[in-house]
Every structure is written in C-alpha cells, then in structure tokens.
C-alpha cells in the first residue's frame, strides 16, 4: 500500500464575524491525494473550496482537524520548518500568476532554489529544463510585465515545478486566461503530472479545466457532496460526465 501524499482528516473551519455570529465554512471534511494523482476540487462560490485550499497549502490554520503532507503534520510546524517545507515539498500556481514584477522570468523561476541556497549551476540547469518543458525559454531575460497572461502563467507553473515538489497546489490556475490559453495551460499541467510524476491538487469552478484531472471532488456547503473518477475515460467523455453531475446539483 502506497502512502498518500496528502491526508486531511476532519477539517473544520469556523469564522466569527465582528458581531459574534459564527459561520461554519468547512464541516468535518476529510480527503486524500495519492501519489501521482491529479485531483480537482469543484464547487460553487461560498462552498469553502478556497478556504480548503488555503488550509491544505499551509497558508491558513483550521479551527480543528489534521493535515499531513508526505507524512508530516503541517499544522504543528514552526515558522522556520514551515518555510523550509513550503520551499522543498510544495509548489503553488495562482489565478493571478503572482510573479514578482521586479525579477526577470529566469529569476522568478529560480527563486525557490535560490531560497534553498542550491548551487548556481544546478539552479541554472533546472531553470533551463523547466523553461523548455513549458516552452518559455525565449523569455528568460524578460520581465513579467513584458509577457502575455498565458506566458506569465506558464512562468508560474515553471516556478512551482523547478524544485521538484511532491505536490503542486493550483488555485484557479486558468481563472484569468482565455479559453485557448486555458486549454494550453491544462495540457502543460497534465504533462507535469504525467512526465514529472508530481501530484496536483487544483481548485477550479471551470468544468473544462477540471476535465483534465484524474479525479474530481465536489464541494457544497463545506462538505464533500460527490466524487467523479476518470478511470481511463477520454477527456471529452469525462467533461460530459462533469457537466451532467453539475447539472444534477442544480
């Protein structure tokens, strides 16, 4: 039995408003991500999917529950360990790319390795490698402001990949892209998942993007309300399945 990459058990998140009103955003939610899996989490606005992603990706601490990534309890780590863990074991891809505008593309991609103080030759080699994988080698000396949205997101993906993390988190990675660029981006993510054997956990509200995943969890009202597994289906067929499932929810 292979150990899952991520195990989240009984996650609860309660927000208290300034008026003292409590709102339970996540209700006793549990999930697992297997090695090499491409998991998409779907759900309408307010279903708690962003909160869930923030908790799983160590950016937020839940009211209750446990999260383990690669067997390590991420909720009880010091600031230092957590930083080290983020820098080594996790990659992030954001909706609004989140590139540092004052650094060149090459510097943006290499940043996670610089932070780990990796030797410069290795850094350059890895940067070159992932840039080729994502077809952005021509832009390495440019600044983010000089690139299109699709290109910027590919830089974001390259940065998430450069340090060979165990798991990449995607927060609506195609949310800011047009349909053509979104398709391209999802093809790159599939490539990362299959060629580099990196697990991906992606939050999206877009059925088309979700159809690239191997499994989909549906969230509503802070709970898992359903699940779809691709099981070797063609992507188009899987897409139809998703649309149908979403229709049933309404």
């Amino acid at each position: 039995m292979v150990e899952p990459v991520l195990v989240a058990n009984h996650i609860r998140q309660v927000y208290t408003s300034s008026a003292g009103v409590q709102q339970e955003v996540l209700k006793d939610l549990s999930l697992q991500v297997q090695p090499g899996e491409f998991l998409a989490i779907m759900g309408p606005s307010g279903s708690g999917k962003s909160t869930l992603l923030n908790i799983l990706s160590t950016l937020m601490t839940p009211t209750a529950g446990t999260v383990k990534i690669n067997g390590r309890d991420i909720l009880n780590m010091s600031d230092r360990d957590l930083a080290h863990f983020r820098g080594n074991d996790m990659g992030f891809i954001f909706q609004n790319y989140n590139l540092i505008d004052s650094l060149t593309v090459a510097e943006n991609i290499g940043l996670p390795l610089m932070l780990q103080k990796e030797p410069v030759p290795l850094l350059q080699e890895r940067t070159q490698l992932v840039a080729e994988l994502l077809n952005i080698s021509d832009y390495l000396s440019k600044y983010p402001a000089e690139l299109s949205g699709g290109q910027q997101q590919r830089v974001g993906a390259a940065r998430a990949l450069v340090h060979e993390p165990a798991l990449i988190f995607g927060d609506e990675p195609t949310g800011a892209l047009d349909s053509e660029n979104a398709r391209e981006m999802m093809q790159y993510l599939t490539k990362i998942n299959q060629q580099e054997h990196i697990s991906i956990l992606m939050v999206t509200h877009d059925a088309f993007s979700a159809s690239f995943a191997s499994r989909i969890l549906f969230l509503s009202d802070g709970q898992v309300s359903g699940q779809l597994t691709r099981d070797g289906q063609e992507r188009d067929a899987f897409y139809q399945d998703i649309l149908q499932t979403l229709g049933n929810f309404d």
Partner: protein
Amino acid sequence: MLIKIAAKTIRQQWRDYLVLLLGTTVAVAIFYMFSVMATNDTFLKGNASMKLIVPVFMLGEVLLGLITFVYLNFANNFLLKLRQQEYGLFSMLGATKRQIGTLLMEETLLVGSLATIIGILIGMGLTGLSANFFMQLIDVKLAHWAVVTPQALVVTVLFFLIVFVLNGLYNRWRLMRQDTLTLLTADRQVGATPVKAKGRWLKASLGLLLLAGSYGMMTQLSTGGLFALILALILNVGGTYLFIGQTLNLLTAYLQTSRFGQRGLRAFVNGQLRFRLPEYKRMLTMIAVVFGMALGAISVGQGYYITLPKLAAQSSGITIATKADNKALTQLKAVDYQATVHYVNQGDKTYLLRTDLGIKVPTAVYQRNQTRLTWQPTSQIEDANANATLSALGIYVNPEAYTTNVILTDQLPKGTVKTISMVRTAKMDANRNVLNQLYQQEQEHAQQVDLIPGTYGTLKTLKGLFGGLEFMSLFLGIAFMIMLASTLMFKTLASVGTDRQRYTILTMLGTTRGQRLRAMMTDLGILFSIPMGIGLLDVGFGLQMFKDLMSEPYAGLGGALVMMLSLYIFYYGLTVFIYRRLMEQPKN
C-alpha cells in the same frame, strides 16, 4: 455620503494616516522653529555674530522651504496611494471625477490643517526646549530669544496653506487624468521594466568622473575662489545624480548575473534596488547633497566649539584673574599655577611686584605700541604668554585701562597696595561652574575693560562672537537631517502596495519571517546607505574648503557624525519597523 464613506476608510486605515500626520507635523514644527528665528529681527540684530550670517540664514530658510515642499509632495503621494483603489470604486459606482477630486482635496486639507495646528504647538515646545538645550550644550547665551511671535505664526500658516492647496490641486489633477480601470487596478499594476539604455557604460563612468572632479575641486578651493566653489557644487550634484542613476544601475546588472547574486534573497533585494533606482534617483541625489550640507554645517559648528578653547588657550598664560580675595578660588580643581600679586596704581602707571609672580621674568616696562593695540616689554622677555598675561593684568587693574603702562618691578612705590590673584588650570571644562562664578563676580567689578584677563575670559568673548554661528549650524543641520530622513521614509512607505504583493509571494514560496525581515532590512538599508555614503564623502572632501577659515576643519567631524548618524539610524529603524508592519499585515 461620499464624505461619510471616506471618513470610515480613514478610521479603518488610521495607522497609515497617523504616519502621514506625524510626518507632516514634524515638517510644520521644524518650519515654525525656523520661522521664529527668521522673523525675529531683534534676535538676529542683537547677537554680534548673527549679523554676519543673516544671508546664510535666509538661504537656509529658502532651502528649508524647498525641502518641505518636496517632502510634503511625497507625503501626499503616499495619501493618494492609500486611497487610489477606493476612489476607483467610487468612480465605478457613478461618482464624478469632480466629486472625487473634491473629496481628495478635502482630505488633503483636513490632514494639512490638523498637522499645522499640532505642528505649531510642537514647534513652540521644541523651540523652547532646543534653545535651552543647545545654548547649554555650547555654553552660549543668545539674547532676545522668543518662543512665540505673531509673524512666525502667520508665515507658517500661510506657507503650509499654500503648499497644501498646491499639493491638493496636483493630486486632484493626477487623479482626474487616470481612468477608472487604472484606479481600480492600482494595486495590481506592475512597475515599468528597467531599460537597458545605450551608452550606460559611458554615463556610469561619467558619474564617477564628475564626482571625483568635484572632490578634487573642493581641495583646491583656496586657489580657485568663488568660481571653483560653484563649479564644485555643479559637478557634485551632476556626479551624484549620474552615480546613483547609472553607476549603481550597472552594478545591479552585474550582480544579477554573478553567482553571488543568486543565493537566498539576494536576487530579490537586487531586483528591488534595480526597480527603485530609476524612480528614486532624483530624490536620493537631493538627499545625498543635503546630507552632506547638514553634516558639514554641524561639523563646522562643532569644529568651532572644539577649537575655541584651544584658540583661547593661546591668548594667555592664566585661566582667570580675580581682584577679590575670592573663596571660590579654593574650589578650583587641577590648579597648576596660582599667584597673588601686589600692585600699586599711580595715574596711568601700574606697578606689579615681580617677586610675587613665582616665574622667571626680568623687570620690564610694558609700553603700548603706537600703531597697534599691543604692549611690548622694554626688556628681553621671550615668553609670549607671560607678555600677554602681564600686560593684560596691568590694564585690567588700572582705571586708565588701554592707556596704562605696566611696570614690572622688585620695589613697589608708595601708594595704596592692592592684590590680585591669578590662577591656571588645564581642566577648564571640569571647572566650568566655579570659573563661571568667578567670571560673573569679576564682571561686576570690571568696568573699564570688558576683557577679564585669562583664557576663560577670552573664551567667553569668542563664544559670544561665534556662538550664533555654532547654534545656527547645529539647528540647521538637525532640521535638515530630520527632513531628509523623513522624505526617504515616506518615499519608501509610499511603495508598500507593490512591495506588499512581492513579500506575500515570498511567504508562499517558503521564506521565514526572519528571512523576510533580513531582506527588508537589507533593501531599506541599501537605500538609506546610498545618500549617506555619498554625503559622508562630500563632507570628507568638503571640509577642505574650510582649511583657510579654521585651524582644524575636521575637529568637529567626530561629534557631528555621532549626532547625525544616530538620528539617521533612528529613522532607518523606524522605517523598517513601519514598513515591516505594513508588509506583514493582511491586506484587509
């Protein structure tokens, strides 16, 4: 309605507004302190050395006005940055540009009026405090010092009213030029990318050359005169500008490709600098130049302070003379010479009993030089100090004063025999209180001569003469320092929007709080060091210009450095503190 929303936002962002208000208040307070002196005619005319520096003073006020203007512009820019997004939202919801512009104007004026009122009150307090502090520090009494003058109030209020209205109009104009979308996405806008200009090597070398040229010029000022001074100033400003904009830019480009620059957060800090330099070069140039001037002013002032006692020490062989059989004399510490001399006055002749002196000098008559106000002995006395001391002593005790002939004899003639005591101590500072007491008692007796014999009297006279200059340099220097450090602080804090985004990304990518703090400290540290480094060089060479005017132009540099650097480092720390708080706090 808009005002209500605006008031609510101000309440929510009160910390940011507090920073703005504090900065502006400091500007008002300093301007008020300056105006109190500048508009106080009796003060300027009533102090001997002040008359000499009235032009310097006027120039100082113009400079202060200019710096205040630039500084407030940065501070208000910070205000605009704080509110841009909200204005965009108002605009999208249907508020007209005119309404928003008026709102911004009202906010600017509100902050301005509050700052003016508080600033003037603080200014009054500081004027009182600083006057006492400085005067005690340099041991000088300045006459006709006032804390509140109607003129100063009017000048300050008018000046800031004009500045704030102009700034408000400028902000309003900038706001009206931007469309709703630009305002709404103000937070998400990326900075311009650094340009790889042609001929940057040439410009970078030119920067170094001009700067070196200006320093060369400063050392040659005694031969070049006013022309050399103006040329040095132009070369210095031009060189500084090119050095910051071009030479340092080239350095960041080099670091970008070096192995050193690709470790940890170095690439990030280097990127920050690369992006800041084009935007900051004008301001950093101004700060570097003013830093040099402020430090130079304090160095010169301190230099006088340090060299005056040395200058005074050459004037006489004793520290003080006292006619009375004074009990205070016994309280003096570290006395290395003391004598009580018997003397007789006969008309314009004063006979001093030589054997009382306890030093080897021949009998002599001190006669006044007909062309100059000096007394020369008839016998061969080689000790210049003995000559100065003995002639001054005779003049002091004789009612005929400056026409007195002083006769050094072994046999006093018939007449009323009186005594005078002389004392010398190497530690004038340690004995300051006793000496002051003696000096004041003597002043009551001394009627015919205003100069009490001894180095302490000379020092008092010199301080009266140069005290105003010392005081002004200290005051100007510290005021300029506060202004320029605050300007730099605000410029940096105004960029929090884009910086905050960068630091958020760093957090997500796996950096510890400590690493981020170090990055902030390095980033801001480099920014603060650039003008400081150039300013220090400016002073290092610039003090050469005073070598003809002062015996030891570098004597005051140490003390001035301690004062200025502590103030500067305090501002650096404050900036890091506020900046970090703005960086690490969640956006809403």
